[in-house]
């Protein structure tokens, strides 16, 4: 039986502990102080709080007083059927072991014996909802018969501890959640996150929105969200439509161009979600979107390129078709057709490979085109005298027909002209006129064959040159606006071709 002074003292201990809890928000400090006060009140050297570790089936010495280093925060007890702590937790009632030497029900961890513990009392700590948190344990170095007053005091103490621990854990979780939330929204710079009120006026402007759309929070809070839409979308009523859809269906896609503070546009792939209060009424909207401008632009570019490729292919097939038709009309027989047609197809293929190597703003140059054609005339190229500047850029739409024309000239030179006779010569000269009388740049090409002896045989062959000549004399002026002079003189062919060339890089690649 304890006396009145002692009872008063115990009440004082509870009050002190309550005071300490009010002034502290560190769970570790509170549990340690709790152990210190309870040990002092019960004249014990040792006290500790054990926290259940469910996944391990153990309890950790979470806090304590009187223990050697390496126990608090480290030592564990097994919560099995031989554990006094487990028993107390299971029953929800205090459990006294007055002398562990005589205790038959339980075994005790070694560190307890090493600290000279001979008696102990376990009091379960319950969280609100009676969920066990662990035990408060007071350990003594001499046998002691705990009285009913001791037990009641310990029970009261443990009942205070439970809600305190619970509040601390919730505050910790909340702080953790808040911190995580802060980290997420502040680091998600690629996502614009905007909250609006029921009238769709902006109430929250997170850092991602500021970095994507340019306005600071101060500048935009309170403004209607529709100012983020393009004038076209505003005129079309898109902002209202989106909010109405979200109000009706919970959410609405928001995948469109938006306007930045500086007037530039950004393509946002996002969604507007209606926010509802506890009564189900819409209280505002959350808009989350990602800046996908780069992806969008590359998709658009891709689409244009695919379109151009398709167009170029179809055009090429059309040209091949017409070429076959034209070659067939001029051919004597099938082997003749085959030879001529295959030859022209190869010329077309060479142009395609030149064109397909180009980057966007690149152009095929005249010297490249000429060397590709001459390189195909194996054995003859070294007999050709070349004179002209490198790097005259050709519009892509002109390259194909110009290549076919050069090919006709070269083929005829090999078959009937300068390259068919050892004494004859071929000189190709060209010059670039940056600004002709009409104000646009021109390329002037001169194809001069000399020393060709015209025999009866070649004279008879000349009519068959009609087909290639037609390509030069008619196709070039028609398709390129070229000026062509074609003269089969006594010593051989003199052909001049003047082609307007564009210097701009943005001109269309396309025709047809």
């Amino acid at each position, binding site marked *: 039986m304890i006396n009145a002074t002692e009872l008063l003292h115990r009440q004082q201990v509870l009050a002190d502990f309550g005071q300490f809890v009010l002034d502290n928000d560190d769970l570790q400090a509170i549990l340690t102080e709790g152990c210190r006060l309870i040990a002092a009140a019960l004249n014990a050297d040792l006290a500790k709080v054990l926290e259940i570790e469910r996944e391990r089936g153990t309890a950790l010495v979470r806090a304590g007083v009187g223990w050697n280093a390496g126990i608090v925060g480290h030592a564990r007890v097994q919560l099995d059927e031989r554990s006094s702590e487990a028993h107390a937790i299971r029953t929800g009632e205090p459990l006294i072991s007055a002398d562990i030497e005589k205790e038959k029900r339980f075994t005790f961890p070694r560190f307890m014996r090493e600290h000279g513990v001979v008696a102990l009392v376990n009091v379960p700590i319950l969280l609100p909802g009676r969920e066990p948190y662990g035990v408060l344990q007071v350990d003594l170095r001499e046998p002691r018969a705990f009285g009913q007053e001791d037990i009641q005091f310990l029970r009261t103490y443990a009942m205070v501890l439970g809600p305190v621990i619970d509040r601390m854990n919730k505050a910790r979780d909340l702080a953790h959640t808040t911190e995580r939330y802060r980290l997420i929204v502040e680091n998600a710079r690629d996502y614009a996150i905007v909250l609006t009120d029921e009238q769709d006026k902006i109430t929250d402007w997170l850092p991602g929105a500021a970095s994507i759309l340019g306005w600071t929070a101060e500048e935009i809070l309170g403004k209607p969200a529709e100012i983020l839409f393009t004038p076209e979308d505003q005129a079309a009523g898109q902002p209202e439509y989106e909010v109405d859809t979200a109000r009706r269906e919970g959410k609405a896609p928001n995948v469109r161009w938006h306007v930045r503070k500086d007037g530039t546009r950004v393509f946002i792939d996002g969604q507007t979600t209606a926010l509802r209060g506890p009564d189900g009424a819409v209280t505002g909207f959350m808009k989350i979107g990602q800046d996908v401008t780069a992806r969008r632009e590359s998709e658009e570019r891709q689409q244009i390129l695919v*379109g151009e490729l398709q167009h170029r292919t179809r*055009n090429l*097939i*059309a*040209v091949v078709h*017409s070429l076959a038709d034209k070659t067939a009309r001029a051919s004597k027989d099938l082997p003749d057709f085959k030879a001529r047609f295959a030859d022209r197809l190869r010329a077309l293929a060479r142009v395609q490979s030149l064109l397909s190597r180009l980057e966007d703003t690149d152009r095929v140059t005249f010297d490249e085109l000429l060397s590709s054609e001459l390189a195909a005339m194996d054995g003859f190229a070294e007999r050709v005298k070349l004179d002209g500047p490198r790097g005259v850029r050709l519009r892509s739409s002109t390259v194909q027909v110009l290549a076919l024309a050069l090919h006709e000239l070269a083929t005829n030179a090999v078959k009937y002209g300068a390259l068919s006779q050892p004494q004859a010569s071929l000189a190709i000269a060209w010059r670039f006129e940056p600004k002709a009388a009409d104000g646009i740049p021109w390329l002037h090409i001169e194809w001069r064959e000399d020393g060709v002896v015209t025999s009866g045989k070649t004279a008879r062959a000349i009519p068959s040159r009609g087909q290639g000549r037609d*390509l030069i004399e008619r196709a070039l002026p*028609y398709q390129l606006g070229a000026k062509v002079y074609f003269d089969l003189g006594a010593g051989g062919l003199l052909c001049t071709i003047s082609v307007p060339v564009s210097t701009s890089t943005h001109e269309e690649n396309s025709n*047809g």
Partner: protein
Amino acid sequence: MAEPMLRDRSVLVAEDEYLVAEELEVELAAAGAVVLGPVARVTDALALLDRQPKIDAAILDANLQGEMIFAIADALTERSVPFVFTTGYDRSAIPKRFEHILSYQKPTDASALVSSIQRLIRNS
């Protein structure tokens, strides 16, 4: 030999690829038509429209050297001249106001184009 289907009919041809234009020209001439053009540029096509009071039909390449042909198409519509498009692009490259106009994907079959023109003239 049967009566040429397009005898004395004036058909405008706008096509910037010489070889293709020439093939059309040959095919139309064989059907008895008078070929207007062919032209390879939009400006040439416009000039031809101004000069020619009588045009019975037209074959329009949708894109002439990077320029769309739709100004010509509008002018022809105004004059109630039937026409068809030829194009290396998808149908989607043609504006909605021309959705009732036949559009032939390149490579086109010249003789099919000629029969199409003949039907258009007969029905107009």
